[in-house]
């Protein structure tokens, strides 16, 4: 087939009509405080890893909530679990536990 150079992009839309809430439901069950995130971004601004990579806990939690779990898989294990975000979080979320839970389910226990 002749390659005309055209390609089809994947839709960038978050489609909430597709139920992809399994991971978020697991997270809420194991760490209920995850529900009370107000997306303030304090965690992301204090994050050491975030200074050098695109690891952003605020965004990770949001995308998990929206069911966009695919994009989380390659970045979730970048967290070094230093816990600075947990000190900074104004809502007192157990952020390290949240990262560990997401890691557990996305990477089946492998924390690299």
């Amino acid at each position, binding site marked *: 087939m002749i390659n005309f150079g055209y390609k089809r992009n994947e839709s*960038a*839309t*978050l489609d*909430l009509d597709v139920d992809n809430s399994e991971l978020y439901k697991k997270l809420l069950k194991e760490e209920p*405080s995850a*529900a*009370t995130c107000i997306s303030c971004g304090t965690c992301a601004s204090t994050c050491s890893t975030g200074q050098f990579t695109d690891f952003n806990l605020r965004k990770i939690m949001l995308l998990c909530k929206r069911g966009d779990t695919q994009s989380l898989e390659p970045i979730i294990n970048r967290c070094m679990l230093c816990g600075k975000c947990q000190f900074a979080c104004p809502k007192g979320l157990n952020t390290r536990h949240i990262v560990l839970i997401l890691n557990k389910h996305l990477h089946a226990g492998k924390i690299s």
Partner: protein
Amino acid sequence: MKSIAIIGAGIAGIEAASRLSKQGHKVYLIEKNPEIGGHVAQWDRLFPSQEEAEIVLNDLIKNLNNRAEVLFNSEVQHCGKKDRQFEIILTGNKNLLVDVILVTTGFDTFRAQRKEEYGYGIYENVITSTDLEQMFKKHNVVCKNGNPPKRLAFVHCVGSRDEKVGNRHCSKVCCATAVKQACEIKELYPDCEVFNLYMDLRMFDRHFEDMYHEAQSKYYVNFIRGRLSEAGENKDHQVVLKTEDTLAGKPLKLTVDLLVLMTGMEACDTQKTLNTKLGLRSDTDGFLSTKDVFTQNNFSNTDGVFFAGTCTGPKTIPETLADARAAASLVNAYLMS
């Protein structure tokens, strides 16, 4: 005996009337509708305590204790200064001569039809926050087909913070109302998925942040930051929403069974007609312009004409009542001097 005409028998008018009549003045409470209570009479429960609106309203009416003369179905036809007093002619040619006029005309709810892209009056499953309160009152929160909604979304800031419809102002109470109604829906239908589409959540007053926290932690309400661009209808008469999840930086699509538009407050038409008659001025937002924003918020620029309640801008119920009491005390001082 000094006399006062209070124009508008919403909660501000009722509260001011009961204070002023208690102080021994003759009070005429003028109401264009056949009932008193204004917008609060349309409401089921109130944020943040979920107290029934009817109980609050009945308490206010009980305080009034029939001391004021309530004139129902009455609108101000003519109004003007006559010596040191005001002459008011009402519908039905009733004539009043009073020493003070207290304007408590309140607000008009934004007509959601004006936001045509949201489909109110076009799609059968698009309702307003006022419609939802009526449904709560009748214990019948259902879609047009009679089924309970499995998915429901609230759109904040409908007719507020929207220069396209001529309203730059924030209506103040809709955020708290949306969160309250979201929790009530979850209370009623725990399995219903609820979404709140907001621009900012303005949880400014006491206990509001607690409501927001409870909406998240107890009811798992989904908060999406993004203004609805457009609503459509699918063949099952569900409402299809398109917005941007501005926190994720991605477009978002969502189909719901029922869409609730949080309609805001606008300056009321009755007040606008009073402006010319009494020499009052509207501010840039349409609400009445006060003598001073900080120190003379209940004073107009016309001697003997005072303001209370939401005619001078959006207010919560406690704020409205406090404003009415302040106005009553100032009117009393004015009459005594």
